[in-house]
């Protein structure tokens, strides 16, 4: 019963871990991750197409975290951090998995589930149409979010988005998103 963060975080570590982070999500941190991962993939002469997909998933995924990490109540900040998020990048066999995680208020879980299920049900052409429709018809939020990040990740990787919601208490859930890159 209940969500155990440490178990969750440890389980993300099966495979060859390139990077594992839990903590505050800041713009500076995002910059350093992008640089760090780019140079790691360069050092193993990774396929340029994989590098580009990885970069894309990280830019969109981390900026989603940056914009959407909810402010946590004080008793949770003691255990975690304000602006708390998780990023684990690992390599298993022939593919990479980028895991992104953050706490959300549970009232958002249905909205997110529906959105991801919808994205996963679409073909590449349908994703393109959805992207163009939102691009042309929806305004950016004050924070600069456009609701396009998830669609873009699915479109550019060509893979389904895998997700899990773990209920922490009456108010909060933990949202984990796995994006496969191959």
């Amino acid at each position, binding site marked *: 019963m209940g969500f155990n963060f440490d178990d969750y975080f440890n389980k993300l570590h099966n495979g060859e871990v390139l990077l594992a982070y839990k903590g505050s999500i800041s*713009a500076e941190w*995002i*910059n350093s991750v992008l640089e760090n991962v780019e140079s790691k993939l360069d050092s193993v002469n990774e396929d340029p197409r994989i590098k*580009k997909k990885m*970069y*894309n998933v990280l*830019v*969109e995924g981390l*900026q989603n975290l*940056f*914009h959407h990490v909810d402010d946590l109540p004080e008793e949770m900040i003691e255990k975690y951090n304000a602006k708390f998020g998780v990023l684990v990048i690992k390599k298993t066999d022939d593919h990479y998995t980028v895991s992104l995680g953050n706490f959300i208020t549970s009232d958002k879980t249905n909205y997110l589930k529906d959105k991801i299920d919808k994205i996963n049900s679409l073909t590449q052409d349908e994703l*393109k149409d959805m*992207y*163009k429709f939102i*691009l*042309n018809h929806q*305004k*950016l939020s*004050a*924070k*600069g*979010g*456009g609701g*396009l*990040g998830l*669609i*873009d990740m699915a479109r*550019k990787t060509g893979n389904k988005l895998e997700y899990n919601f773990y209920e922490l208490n009456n108010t909060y859930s933990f949202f984990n998103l796995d994006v496969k890159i191959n």
Partner: protein
Amino acid sequence: MEALTIEGTAKTPNVKFEADNGLIEIKGRSIPENSIEFYKPLVDWLEEYGKTPAALTKVNIQLEYFNTSSSKCILDVFKKLEAIYKTKNEVIINWYYEEDDEDMLEAGEDYESIIRVPFKMVEIVD
């Protein structure tokens, strides 16, 4: 009207807008967390420029990469250019993409299908 020049950074592109010769250039990477903040001066400049545009406005967009947040702001830039084109002024948008960068070519074609301004897709060959 004064030119708008912004030096590029790791997260934002080079910008060169010149009213005198109708040159509009955006080059580099565009991945700011808050794209509205970055693009607002560009859109405002174009709004002003649109009142007395050059006979021909030549637009060069050469982006190596842009995030989805920027994609909406880039559309706003194009909408300003579309308004100029609609008032019977010449506008041409050159959309540059690296050889083999199909994503960037497709992104240009997405804009081309939304914006009623002539686009030219230009492949950069090393």
